């Protein structure tokens, strides 16, 4: 390996797990997440001299990861969609209720369109602002807000999350 790859190795060792977590949240499949992360890091390696010279290489790599995920066109569809009926939160106690709600939310998130899911992951897991999300997705902040609004509306009206509120 060439000398510059030393810093690349350090980067992968330091940031690889976080990238895998992000990929996993985006595609909701462990194997797909690994493939996605590896594909992106292989591309990063080829451009590492340039990327490592950027002020925030991690932000750039995450952007590559999200956009690679969005462009995958279901070449290997995980086939996992939330089809199982969720337990009713009304039947659970407080602690269990939280667990069940989260479980339901995970399934519902997996069923959202890719772009809406990406917006929610970037907003609620990566804690990015709408402006930062817009830069990652190469769209306007208004589009980000619109996508987030639709995604949240879908979740809000889903039975697994709302039965208790009815």
């Amino acid at each position, binding site marked *: 390996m060439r000398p510059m790859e030393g810093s690349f190795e350090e980067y992968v060792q330091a940031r690889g797990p976080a990238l895998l977590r992000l990929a996993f949240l985006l595609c909701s499949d462990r194997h797909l997440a690994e493939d996605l992360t590896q594909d992106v*890091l292989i591309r990063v390696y080829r451009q590492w001299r340039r990327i490592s010279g950027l002020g925030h290489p991690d932000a750039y790599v995450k952007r590559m990861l999200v956009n690679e995920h969005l462009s995958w066109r279901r070449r290997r569809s995980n086939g996992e969609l939330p089809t199982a009926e969720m337990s009713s939160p009304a039947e659970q106690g407080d602690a269990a209720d939280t667990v069940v709600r989260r479980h339901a939310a995970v399934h519902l998130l997996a069923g959202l369109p890719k772009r809406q899911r990406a917006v929610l992951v970037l907003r609620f*897991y990566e804690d990015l602002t709408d402006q930062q999300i817009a830069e990652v997705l190469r769209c306007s902040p208004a589009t980000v807000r619109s996508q987030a609004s639709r995604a949240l509306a879908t979740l809000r009206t889903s039975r697994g999350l709302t039965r208790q509120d009815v």
Partner: protein
Amino acid sequence: MNDEQLGALVSGSLRAQAADAPGGAHLLQAVTTGVRRKAVIRRRWVVSSSAAIALAAVSLGLGLWSSARPGDGTQQAAAPSLRPSSFHHLQLEVPASWALNPEPCSPHGRDRVIDHPDLLQVPCLTPLTEATRLGQQVLFSTGRTFSTTYLGPAATTRPITIGGVSGTLSSSTNEQTGMTEFALALPSLDVSVLIDVRSPALAETILHSARVTGQ
């Protein structure tokens, strides 16, 4: 459920789900393997693409050359550094940069044109049979037939007519040197020519330029 509560739920769900993400213990190894595999694929692709491009270029060059008539300018554009060389009323266009009639029996290895009968003594031709020769050459001769002497039994021979003069053209590829060899014989002019070059296209260009001058 208001937006804040829903946001908190989504945030908590994502963080809980993230705990199930792959650990990444073998990520670096997988990436390294992937990089190497892609590099191999890329090298193979470059080699095969280069070969295909080279083949297409040669085919295109030969196509242009074969569709051009002698002296119509097209062939000049394909081989701009040629100059005429005549011997016994046979004229060929030969590479202008090649040495003309270098010292007799000088070590062969330099591209050359020999069109002087006195320089075509047998000892000077001896290097032709050696596998170590590197130079390209066009040899004009009289009183000998290169096809049987140098091209060997594997050469193919066909009749040819140049400017109304009949003769034979033999061709072969030297397995030891990789050189393309053509032997042109026009008995009525008492001339034979050996063309010994690396590029089949150059050999074709030289041959195609053949013309009979005033007898």
